[in-house]
């Protein structure tokens, strides 16, 4: 293999030229492969003669992994059947091949997109292995109390690894990709191109990697799923924008192409997520900005030294100031202050997810949920509201006959099924609250929902906003309403007029069919 094959591969990653693992040479494959617990988990399953199903989205690394492990698989069982890419065959052929392997009691290992698995399961409801595989995909996530581990294991002879559940943006994978790509031997004609050689050096900085990881963690918590291919493309872009050397030579040195600019300027889902997540250029602070503009920053606070700024900027050069803020964030010890200034919902959400105290979590969420329904009278119980009309206009009246107390609720966190838990890391990006032991009453709190609930303080509500988040809240109310007390002799009803804010409490004797009291609150 030539010294530069890896470099050529890297240059192709951004534009997707190297999109498919099955078109790569074994040498490249081995060079870019990052060994993780997943490799070991698959090997373990093979040693037990299990059927292995690697599923997920394109770019998650299914075929790549199967190719890397195929030698081990064959070593464990020479007769094992390995289907590197299900999309190359017709569904019927796949099913036939799988059934044959099952009949012959040899392991069947397949890399298959989730959609194809779904189709095969739908059209072969009596094929136990494929139905079990689909079940494991659907039941990959189990909700448990903090610290608990899922105990329900895979059934039958099939083990599924759904790579779409794997968080590729974990520090060990990110650092491994950075390490491999930045160590690639650079062709001579590229050595003088700043964006390649020097970026490779800059990216080795611990501080840079740490700051990048913070951004990756933020977007992961926003439920952004990155494929391995996208991560490689991202790093590839940082090392020369995916351009041939001759093209890059013409634009080299342009400040727009500096590393910290490229992080926010590429095309694709990962770049979009980073731009939405946190962009240091948007954070203003008079003291920090002054120091950034006048370059009154101590040299020894830059890491590495090469990233240091060398001169002051013009006060009205907004673009330059924004570039400097980005550079400051990634390469200066004090750069983290920009994130702290942001003090945004991401930070608060992260704290919520990491909170070890269920009571604190509920104490934060319950008032917000009540606020979303314009009800500020209770912090320790969720008032269950209803509204009813037959057209699609906005609700004006809310009414309620009961509330769910905090002690009746529990907070659960997503956990991977045991098989997948042993294979890869899953970043907690949401939690659910529900009535204890009643999974049908669940409300999912992800970043989007949390952000909305934070805005209820400023007037956002199920009435002023009509979208999938408010629909989720209304569904939650509907599910909670199943627990309405029945056969009570006295009914305590609250009626809230959302336009006037008037809240009325009406007590009804249901046996005598009489209004006992009517009071304005």
């Amino acid at each position, binding site marked *: 293999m030539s010294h530069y094959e890896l470099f050529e591969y890297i240059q192709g990653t951004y534009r997707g030229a190297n999109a498919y693992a099955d078109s790569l040479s074994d040498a490249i494959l081995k060079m870019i492969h990052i060994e993780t617990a997943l490799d070991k988990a698959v090997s373990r399953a093979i040693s037990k003669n299990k059927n292995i199903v690697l599923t*997920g*989205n*394109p770019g998650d690394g299914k075929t790549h992994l199967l190719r890397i492990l195929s030698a081990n698989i064959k070593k464990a069982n020479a007769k094992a059947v390995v289907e590197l890419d299900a*999309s190359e065959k017709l569904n019927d052929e796949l099913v036939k091949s799988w059934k044959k392997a099952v009949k012959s009691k040899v392991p069947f290992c397949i890399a298959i*997109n*989730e*959609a*194809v698995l*779904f*189709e095969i399961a*739908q059209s072969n409801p009596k094929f136990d292995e494929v139905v079990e595989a689909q079940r494991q995909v659907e039941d990959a996530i189990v909700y448990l109390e903090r610290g608990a581990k899922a105990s329900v294991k895979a059934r039958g002879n099939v083990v599924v690894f759904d790579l779409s559940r794997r968080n590729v943006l974990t520090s060990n994978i990110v650092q491994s990709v950075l390490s491999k790509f930045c160590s690639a031997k650079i062709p001579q004609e590229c050595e003088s191109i700043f964006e390649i050689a020097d970026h490779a050096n800059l990216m080795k900085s611990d501080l840079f990697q740490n700051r990048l990881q913070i951004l990756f963690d933020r977007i992961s918590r926003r439920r952004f799923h990155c494929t391995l291919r996208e991560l490689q493309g991202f790093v590839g872009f940082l090392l020369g924008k995916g351009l041939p050397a001759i093209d890059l030579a013409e634009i080299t040195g342009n400040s727009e192409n500096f590393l910290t600019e490229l992080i926010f300027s590429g095309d694709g889902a990962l770049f979009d997520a980073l731009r939405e997540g946190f962009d240091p250029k948007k954070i203003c602070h008079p003291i920090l900005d002054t120091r950034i503009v006048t370059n009154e920053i101590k040299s020894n606070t830059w890491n590495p030294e090469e990233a240091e700024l060398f001169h002051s900027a013009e006060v009205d050069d907004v673009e330059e100031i924004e570039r400097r803020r980005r550079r400051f964030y990634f390469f200066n010890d004090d750069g983290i202050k920009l994130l702290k200034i942001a003090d945004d919902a991401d930070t608060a959400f992260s704290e919520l997810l990491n909170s070890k105290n269920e009571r604190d979590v509920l104490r934060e969420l319950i008032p917000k949920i009540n606020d979303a329904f314009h009800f500020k009278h209770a912090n320790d119980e969720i008032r269950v509201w*209803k*509204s*009813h*009309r*037959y*057209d*699609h*206009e906005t*609700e*004006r*009246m809310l*009414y*309620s*006959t009961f509330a769910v107390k905090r002690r009746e609720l529990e907070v659960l966190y997503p956990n991977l099924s045991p098989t997948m838990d042993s294979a890869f890391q899953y970043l907690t990006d949401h939690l*659910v609250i529900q009535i204890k032991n009643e999974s049908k009453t*669940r409300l*999912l709190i992800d970043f989007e929902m949390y952000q909305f609930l934070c805005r209820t303080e400023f007037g956002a509500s199920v009435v002023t906003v*009509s*979208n*999938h988040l408010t*629909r*989720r809240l209304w*569904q939650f109310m*509907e*599910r909670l*309403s*199943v627990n*309405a007390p*029945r056969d009570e002799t006295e*009914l305590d*009803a609250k*009626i809230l*007029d959302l336009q006037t804010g*008037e809240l*009325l409490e*009406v007590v*009804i004797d*249901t046996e*005598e*069919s*009489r*209004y*006992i*009291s*009517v*009071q*304005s609150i």
Partner: protein
Amino acid sequence: MSIAIEELREAVDESFVGIRLNTTKVKPVHIANGLFRAILSETNSTKLLHRFVFHQKATGEIPLGHDIDSVISDLLECEAIEPGIEPDNIALFRRQLKRVVSADDGVFTGQMQSYSAGSSAFLSKDTVGQDAGGFVASWLEFVDSPLFEQIETCLHDETDIVSQICQPLLDDETAPFEIFADIEDLKFTKSQLKGRNKNKQWVGLERAAETLATNLQEHPDKLFRLRMAVLFSAFAVLRHVTSLESYYDKDKKNSPPPFLLDFGINGDLKDASKQSYSRCTQSIARFYSFAFGEVLKKTHTAEQLTKCKPPRYKEGIKKKIDDQGDNVWKVKRDSAKNARNKFLIFGEAIFDILALQAEADPIRYFRGLGRRIGLLHPPKGAAVPWFRPKQDLVELIIYCCIEPGKSIELSTLCERMYERFGILVGGGTMDESVLESNGIYTWDRDSLNENVAAFSSSLVDHGFATQLADGVMKVSLEVLV
């Protein structure tokens, strides 16, 4: 011989349509009241409830017996209220309760009461826009739909919160009730709803109702179930009204105009969707022209019609509008002289005069109801609307197309949407040919693809779908968690 258009219209609606499309004020709550009372074949006395909630007219005038003192006195007498409650609080309660039970703005003076509620005690003798609900009830019973029984069960259940809050004001004095037109007596029933060659559209609606009933069975909220059932009924009415031509016109037998739904952000499909709306209204106009002609055949000869005085919708029309109607009649009469199908032309004239002179015509009924259920956009104004459904309707479509616990691909969903509702979004294999055969040309493949993408994005956002690889979307009812 003179022609009384209003009577002619009634005759057409009674024997051909099953619904009097004679109001622009029809609201989903009217559909609800009509549907529910037809299912139970009874109405209730809502006297005390009405007196309590309808505290004054829009002019500020307090109807007789509705003043607070009389109301409190009667409530005390029948022990529906404890003595000593502050009159101010009762006054506040009346206002608030009215907003609760008249959330759809369906409670007015006299008999005009359709309550935003969900049990039998609220069913009134309202006469505004009730036929549509009655028609759907008649159809559901005719096809023995599980949805009929489900609605019936809901109506007998008085544990919903609205019924509970109103309990002291409700009584159980019932009166029998009959709908405007029994579906068995309608002219299209035999050819479209019976036998081996049942109309595909009705078969689709039947399946939709069945799937909806199965899904609603699982739903914990009774009021939600009724809301969905009413929304479905309103949609079925709109579909029925735009399919009438296809029942009776042999050439159009199996192709009612599609509803092309626009989900796009850029409005690329807006014009095509407007055209789709126009095809629907043209179909309604053609049907009525045909139906009027058929009714006229029974009472007049063509010769008699040419000698007839220009008909009026009814007496007391303003002169200017009268003159317009007269002109229409004269023009059509002249063109009928040498025409083969004279009755069709006279039927067109009747319809045109009706549209000019009546307070409401079937096209405005269609538009009004379509807007009020969130199918047509914009919700108000004179602009030509197009099909841009609100969230509730998207939810209804999902409930009617996917069985509980099942997942289907987006392409399958699009096929079912057309099969069950005559809806297109651009993702079905037959969409392009259907659009072309209905003379809808202001689209291209890119705009259809973008529309499907926007539709699927909407499904994902609302938790109805997950995006799998290779562009496959898995749609199901419960993907939120």
